[in-house]
Structures are given as structure tokens and as C-alpha cells.
């Protein structure tokens, strides 16, 4: 949960839930795109905190888990498009690590939507803003990341989904 308040909630009502998202952005593409969004004055939600790395290849799963345990509700890792990495292949390695992570997180009770890898080129300021907006909206739906209650609920969700698929009825 963030100390952010919307400042627009009616007096006396509980503050609206504002998720906290940590973004690991690579210096050459995604961070530049975020700067570009700023230069173009494109507005996106303030829920994101950006941490600069030189390349998404630097991002370890440890960082993601640390962020989630330190109070973040979701993590975004954004780097160059495949083939466009400033260091040739760092983003491919990041991608492979994220695949593993995305399978692991639900087993901790963390919905896989709370971790997102995105490819953002240095000229894609608009895209960056859009991605942040989408993620904030999604996490708002999912709610804050907290303890066991959430964990069990997430596991239930896991089984129910399987049934839905096996039953052959497309409910969503």
C-alpha cells in the first residue's frame, strides 16, 4: 500500500487503495522512453517508482522478491526490444529469467499479474505511459499484496481456473 492519497476522496471515507509499483528500467531504452514521456508531458499514474539499471540483464529475481516484500504491490521490468539491446543480448536473458519467475510467483501466492516484463524502445514514451496506466489499473483490481489470506485465495483461484479449462466451458 502506498501513502499516496488521491486527495479526491470524499471527506470521512476510507482513502482509495493506491498500489505501489517498482519499475526496473534499462538505461538505454526504457528509462529514456520514460524520460521522453516526461518531456512530452504525457501523464501517467504516480504509483510507479523507477529504479535505473544499465540493462535488464542486471535484474535478478532477488530484486523482484525484495521489492514485493519491501512493500511494493507489483514489479515492472522494462527493457529494449529483442534485437535492440544496447548490450546485444541482455534483454533475452532477462526474458528467460522472467519466464521462470512468472511460474514461481503464483506458488508463493502472488498473482502473476503483479510481475510484468515489457519491451519499450527509447522512442516509445507513449507506450511506457500506457503500460504504467494498465498495470496500475490491474493492480488496483487485484488489491494490495498481503499475507496468508491472499495466499490461500490465490491458490483457490489456481484450482478453479483449471476446472474451468477442463470443463471445456469458456467462462472468460
Amino acid at each position, binding site marked *: 500500500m502506498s501513502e499516496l492519497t488521491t486527495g479526491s476522496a470524499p471527506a470521512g471515507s476510507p482513502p482509495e487503495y493506491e498500489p505501489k509499483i517498482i519499475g526496473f528500467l534499462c538505461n538505454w531504452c526504457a528509462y529514456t522512453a520514460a524520460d521522453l514521456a516526461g518531456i512530452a*508531458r504525457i501523464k501517467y499514474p504516480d504509483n510507479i517508482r523507477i529504479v535505473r539499471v544499465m540493462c535488464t540483464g542486471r535484474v535478478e529475481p532477488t530484486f523482484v522478491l525484495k521489492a514485493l516484500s519491501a512493500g511494493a504491490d507489483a514489479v515492472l521490468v522494462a527493457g529494449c526490444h529483442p534485437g535492440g539491446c544496447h548490450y546485444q543480448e*541482455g534483454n533475452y536473458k532477462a526474458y528467460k529469467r522472467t519466464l521462470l519467475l512468472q511460474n514461481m510467483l503464483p506458488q508463493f501466492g502472488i498473482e502473476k499479474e503483479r510481475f510484468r516484463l515489457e519491451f519499450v524502445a527509447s522512442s516509445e514514451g507513449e507506450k511506457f505511459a500506457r503500460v504504467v496506466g494498465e498495470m496500475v489499473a490491474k493492480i488496483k483490481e487485484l488489491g494490495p499484496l498481503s499475507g496468508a489470506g491472499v495466499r490461500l485465495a490465490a491458490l483457490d483461484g489456481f484450482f478453479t481456473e483449471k476446472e474451468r479449462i477442463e470443463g471445456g466451458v469458456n467462462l472468460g
Partner: protein
Amino acid sequence: MAEEIRTGVYVCHCGTNIADKVDVQAVSKFAGTLPGVTVSRDYKYMCSDPGQDLIKKDIKELGLNRVVVASCSPRMHEPTFRRALAAAGLNGYLFEMANIREQVSWVSSNPLQATVKAKSLVSGAVRKVRYNRPLEERYAPVNPNVLIVGGGVAGLEAALKIAESGNQVYLVEREASLGGNMAKFDKTFPTLDCAACILTPKMVEAGQHEKIKLLTYSEVTQVDGFIGNFQVKVRQKARYVDVDKCTGCGDCEQVCPVNTVDRFNEGLSERKAIFKEFPQAVPNVYQITKKGTAPCRLTCPAGVNVQGYMALTRQGKYSEALALIREAMPLPAVCGRVCFHPCEGECRRGDLDQPVAINAVKRFLADHEAKNGSVPPVSAPASGRKVAIVGAGPAGLAAGYYLSRAGHEVVVLEGKAEAGGLLRYGIPEYRLPKDILRWEIDQISRDGVSVRINQWLGRDFTLEKLRQEYDAVFLALGTSKEQTLGIPGEELQGVVSSLKFLESANTRAESVSGRVLVIGGGNAAVDAARTALRLGAQSAEIIYRRTRNEMPAFAEEIREAEKEGVKFRFLTAPMRVVGRGGRVQALECQPRQLGEVDAGGRRRSIPASGPNVLLEAELILVAVGQKVELPASLAGKVALGARGTVLVDEYGQTSSPGVFAGGDLVSGPSSMVEAIAAGKETARVIDAFVRGQALPGPVPKPQPLPQPANPDRFYKAARHEPAQLEPEKRRGLSAEITVTLSEEEVLDEAKRCLDCGVCSECQECVKVCQAGAIDHGMQDEEVELEVGNIILATGYETLDPSLGVQWGYGRFPNVLTGLQFERLSNASGPTLGRIVREDGREPEAVAILHCIGSRDKNYKEYCSRVCCMASLKFAHLVKDKTKARVYEFYIDMRAYGKQYEEFYNRVQDEGVNFIRGKGAEVLEKDGRLVIRAEDTLLGVFREVPVDMVILNTALTPRSDADAVARLFTIQRSADGFFLESHPKLEPIKTATDGIYLAGACQAPKDIPDTVAQAAGAAAEALEKISAGRVRISPITAYCLEELCSGCKTCIPLCPYNAITFSEEKKVALYNEALCKGCGTCVASCPSGAAHMRNFEEEQMLEIIEGVCAL
């Protein structure tokens, strides 16, 4: 950490940029409460001198050892602040920035939230900076060489500037000549200078400058290294012409028989396969376009250069064509009659209408030669070696021919009364007249091969005798024995092997009576049946145990046989011959069906239900296959294979040294052309063998054509089929069925050839080149360069307007692109500068359309900048050279540059009709082209009839811009052009240090801007060269060897090969000079031995903790 951390935090207002959203005082106050923060201030402009002085003062007076600035993006001012720290005596890397402008105040709409966000980022930075360590910057020397990619006006300008400064330039240009797109123009705006006149001096100067090394017709394939130290690989494409010897005289162009599309003339004309791009090309030499080996040539078992002799035939050079054929195959007359022409099956013309009648053309050439005499080939000087060949069939004759040409004395020993093998004794007269065969074999004998007849191996000579008397022996005995049926009654009189039957028909031609049954499905069976009918048989029926689809005989032969009345009985197998009094009476046959596919790929023939049939016949011919008949005298002398064929190694040598073998003897029953190919191949090996040289490996497989080949020219033309004798007239053995084509028909066929490989290697150019500059065997070469800076000046392409059906390009004639019009107007273009339509008439009215594909969300959203002025230029040229009326359909008139508006004025004065309304559609009406548009200024709808339309198409990035960007590790902007560092302030630098942009590859621009930018790029490079060294970031990875477990996980991850494994210490070795600092290895290290300066794990965890706190 022992030292006490004393951090100074400075929160910048940036005027109102930050302060209007973020409560900077609150952030500063908050920062003051964080652990390790000694002082926290806010100030209006931290990047200004007073702002920096604040920091310096605090460092000195308050003993700060860490600094955090919360302001703009570190990509903007990190270096500024690092320098400020250094000036105050503190290492610049003990510094962190929090980006609260681009990433907070400018993107937020909520001041409360923005302030909280800013506080969290500051918190993160404060926590991280505690763990920052001082880092020393490294320096690397700068290699003074410069690589310039692109030889257009941008590349030339930059090259000349740098060369004049005394530094070495490598100028790489993909096309054959310098000049780029500008070389295609006629005049340039606004001065109306002739483009070539102002460009060629630069081209020539660059070509002659001692400090410029030209690498034309070349491409960069690999780039490694970093600024100051790049290693570049360049592939120089084979020109097939020696640049140093070629004088540019053009004799070769005169004789080249192949035409292809002239891309320099934008597809408006054709050029030869050997060409110079344009008369003022630099270097002023020719080159040859080779796309690959044409499929006809590739598929011919003998490797005959089909495309080559087709091209020569097209020019009427029949003897040259035959000489080219004989390079691969010495029996053209025979081939032109009996070959099964796999070449026609692969002919790409067949994809359009019908394949070229290659076989018939070859036949014409041979027959023409027979009438007009031939020229003997040139042989190598006598070698003094002798080779004996046993068997004068196609394999033996071919081997003899090539060995004789190689300078050896050749003797061919033939057992029968005449040479030719199955050509003489197997193939019937009506397919291959014997006198033609004799004539062809005579040619071979005349050319130095001595053929001795009635010489049987074993009876008249032995293998040992040959091995003693000759330097090598080639066995080409073929497969002369018939397979037997293995059924009862086979030995009865009247059951004859088809080989014997055909041989007898080819010698004595005795008549046949009664009913004839032929067992088998190959060519021998069909030949036997057709021959039997001609010799008078009452009927001839072919019995085959599978169906027509599985018959190995040539489809044509089967068709002709049917026409002539041969019957076919499929799915029938012989069981028993019924006889009476020792003579055959009938054949008992079993019905068959097709089963599963066998090992050979054909479906098995298995018994079917139903009764056997009894077929009466007077003569049964067996044609179920041939096998080797090994003479007794060879038994035990040479190793045999499974099917009784002679075994040879990869060189064609048998188990007996010095004895080679080839043709059907080795391969089993095959075709004539494959036998010839075998003879030729073995001759090549024997040639080396008798000279005592190392035996040569196989000839490298030629390069096939890239699929699919789009024929550049296409007009439908039906194939000339050789006339055929009607079946009723096919009496007697000797009437040839097909007639040779006439000369006109042959020339037509030769013209139908698409020249798939472009250059056909006919060698005519080689013959006329007096400088001896042509070398068809040239290969691409690779060059490695070391440079310190790279300038990309790769230019632009234009949009293909056929994407928009409404513009009529490619649908109607006389609709041109701007570049096509330039070529028309250019004096060295396809019309020598006359502005005319395709039908040669001058236009009476010309329409010029702006914005075709530019300013258009459906194609390119941007404005191409130069086309308004180009349109004015075109209008002027049309007015100048013709009497036509000119209509310009425009949306805006962008005449922004120096003298541009004045030029617009001038063109207006020339009486051009300007219609403000985009040309929406080009139609054809009543034989004229019509432009539909709204004249928006008049507010009326107009349909303007014209005779020629010029489309100003959008300037686009090159189609391979993506690949080039990756090669040089630069990015592209959203419009696809290369991305500059900053669109306003740094239009030349890229995100990759040491790589600069010049010209239209960065964005569309006119010539003055291109030249200016190129000079700027040169200045960037010279700046680095002048400084002599560059600063390398110290942010690299390193390894704590004591923690390294030697797992080698990190080693393959580094794209720069900066990590190696030490065998002695069993740990990873990090080469920090090569490391670029991505951190991938660090993230992967399971032992925690790999570290990254300034992005250590503890630093990352601290900053995460910090930004998550609020």
C-alpha cells in the same frame, strides 16, 4: 563500513518545472530526517553555477562524503554534477541522482502524490549512495582511422573533410559506384545546378585521395569494439572484374548477350549483365551481376551451361554456343535427340508459360554445325601420357574427349564393330539416326581420340597389358546384359532379350511378324515395342506389373508409343511362357495390384485376386532391366558391389590401382547424359593422376538461385514445339519423328530464356577484354578494419507507389516516380534527356502530385521535406524541355530554405498551374490519364486530363535499416530513421559513442542540410581524434576470485567475450577493458562472486528498500 557517512541532499526547483508539482521544501525537509544526511537544501537551479557552488561549499565546509541531487534525469546532468564533486575534491561516483522532473513532476497531475513519489525516490537514492564507492575513470586511445558507411553526397563530404585533416578514411559503399541517390538526379533545386556536375568532382577527389580507401561494391558485416577502438569486418563482393586492370573501355558490354533491369535507371531501361552504373562512375570500372546458377544448369547431370549457350544462340553465335556446350558434353547432336532434358523440367520460364525448348535448340545447333562445318577445340599441349579406355559408349567417348583436350594420347577400345555403345546398338534409328551418331563420333576421333573397333577385352587384349602400356585405364563397359525373368519357359525360342532385339534391329533390321509382347516398363521396353511395330509386327503390347505412373520410361516416349499404336497392359505380371514344339505360343500372366511403398520408393506389385490370363504371342521381348556383364578376364581383378557393378572410391578408381571405372558399369543402368557426366568427371581425375598430381576433390556445388526468382521482364510467348511426323507416316525404322526447329524458331526460343542467373558465364566478355581484366572465378573477400569512429551515411529509399492503387503506378503507363522522372530528364538516362512518354511522344500536359505516401497515416505520417521543392524543379524541367502544360496538385507549398521561396516564385512565373488539392486518384479515360481532385481554393471538383503523371513519393528509411541499426547497435526512431542522441541539440551523435549519423539516413533532408550534417559528423570524429583519447566508463563487472566456484555460468553470457576461464586457478577471469557494464553475468552468478561497480547487490537492495518505503 568504518567511515561515517555524511550525505548532502539537494532538491532542485528547476524554476517551476519541478516546483509547481512537487513540494520541494517538504522533500528537502524529509530528506534531512533520513539517516546519514548531514545537510538537506532546496534550490532553484542546481545545475547552474551557484547551484553547483552550493554543493562544493558544503563538501568543503561540512566534510560531506556523499551527495544526492534530486532534479532532472541523470541522462541530462549526471556528468555535470560528477564534475562538480570532482572539482571539490570528492570522487564523482560518490553521487546519486533522483529523477523528479521527467519522471515525477512532468508526468504527474496530482501534487500530493507527486511529492510522496519524489520523497520515495530521494529516500532510495540516499540509501543507495551510502554504498557507493569511489571509481576511477579509464581512458582508451583513439584510433585515428574513420569508417564511413555510404558513398553518397553525405559520405563523400565527411570523407573529404576527414581525409584533408590527414587521417585515414575507409569509405564503404554497397553499390558499384559512389554517388548514391544524388547521382541519379538531373538538376538540383534551387540553383538548378546539374547534379552530376557538382557531385562528380567530389567523387573523383574521393576516388583519388591518398587518405581515402574506397571499398565499393562492399558491405559491413560485423562491428565489434567501442569508441576509439572498433573492429569492423567488410565483405567485398566479387565484381568478377579486376579493378586495377579494367580501363572502362566497354568492349565487354558490347558482346554481353544478357539483359537485365537497370536499377540505376529506376527500371526504365535494361542493361547488360556486365555493366557500369553510369558513365561517370567512380571507380570507373565494370562489374558483373551474378545471381547464382540457373536451375537448368544446376540440374543438368553433365553441368552444361544451358543459360550460357541460350544467350549465345540468341546472338546468332552458334559455334560459340556449341563450344560452350562441349565444355561439359561432347555429343550435342545425340543429346539434342535422346536426352530426357531435366533442364526443361526446372526451367523457370515454365512458371510463366512454358519452358524454353532447350533440347530442340541444342539439336538445331548441332545440325547447323553438321551442315556448316565445325571448329576443333583447342587442346592443351601434349603431355606425353597415354590413357586407354575400354568401351566406346557415351561414358568412354566423353572421357576420351576430355582427356584428349587435356593433352593426353587416348585410345578407345571397342568390342563391337562400331563405336557408340547403347547409342549405336540400343537406341532405335528413328530416335537417333546412325549417320548423325557416326558424324558426332568422328568429330571426337578427329579431335585426337583414336577409336579401335573389334577389340574385345580378354580376347584381343588383357587388363594387365593395358596397365603396362598405358598410364591409366578407364573401364566403361556399361550394362550390356539383360536381366532374366526367372519364369518357366524363358528359354523357349521366341523369347528374346530386348537388348538383343534392338541390337539386331540396329544392324540387320530383319522384319518381324505376328503378335509381340514386351515385358517391362523402361525405355528399352518402349523402344522395343515401337521398333517391333515398325519392323512389321502385327501388334505390340507392353506388359507391366505396375501402373503407368510407375513406369520408368520417359513420358514422351510412352506418349509417342501410344500414338503409334503400342498397347499397354498394366498391373499384369508374367508367370510362365507356354510353348509348343520348343517355340513360344503364349504368355500366362497374373493380375497384380499395388501394395506398400518399397525401399526404392515405388509401390510394390503384389498379386491380386482374379484368374490368370493367357496372352498369345509369336515373339516375347524381355526388357526388365540390365546388369553388368563382367568379362571373365576381369574376374577377381576389380572389386564388385552388391548389384554386380564395379566398386570405385570417391575418385572413380577401382580396387586395381591406375584402373578407373565409370558410367553404367559403376552406377547401374542410368541415362546417357549421366554416363557422359561420369566420363567427364573421371577424365578430370585421370588427368591429375597421370601427371602425378594430387587427385582433385569434387567440384564445389554451384550456388543455386535464391528462391523465388522474379523474372524482371515478362511477356507471354508460347513455346515452339518441334514439328512431329504424324503416326501414320512413321513407317520403317529410319523416319525421324521430330523435325529440327528452324532458325527463326530457335532465335525466338532463345529470346524466351529469362536469364535467371543474369550473367550466364558464356565467356564472351573474356574473349574481347584486351586488358585481361575479367575473372569469373573471383570470390567475395573479407577485409578487417580497425577504426576509431564510424559515420553512417547510408541514405534513403523511396516509397513504392504501387501500394496505393489509386495512384495508378504500374497499372497505367506514363505514371512515374520522381526518381524515374529524374532519369528521363538526365542526359545520360534512357531517353538521353528527352521527356517523352513510353510511346515516344512528348506529353501535352503533365501532372505533378505532391505527398504520395507522405503526411499520410496510411503510409508515412511524416513530411518528406524535399518533395515540394522537387515538384517545382520537375515543373520547371518540363516547362524547359517541352511545350507541355504543367499542373501541380499540392496540399501545402513548403519552401522553407534559402532561395526556396524565390524559386517557387520563378516557377510560378513560368506559368505552371497550381491546384491546391491533393491528387486523389489517377484514372484512364478516353486514352488519357486523368487526375481527380478537389480544387479547394476554388471550391470545385476537377478532372484534369494529362499525358504523364509524376508522383512525388515519400522518402523512407532503407529497407534494411533494422539490420543496419542492429549491426551498429544504434536505435531507430518511431518513423524508422536512425535515432539521434537528441533531436534538437544532438542530431548527429547516437546513443552509441563513436557512431555518428549524416544525411537522410537520420531524417529526410535536402542537399545543403545533408552536406552541413556530414561536415558536423566529420567534426565529431575529428574531435575525438584530436583529443587522442576517450573516457571509458568505470561501471564494469569484476569477479571476487576467492568466491568464484568455477561453475562457468557467466562465461557464455557475455556478448563481448570479456569473461574467460582460468585453467590454473579454476575461476572466471574478467577482462574489464572489454566489459561494457550490462551486468548480466552479475545477475547470473550463483556464488555472488560477480559484482558490478555502482550497481552492487547491496546498493540495489538498498534503493529498492528506499523507494518502497513510502
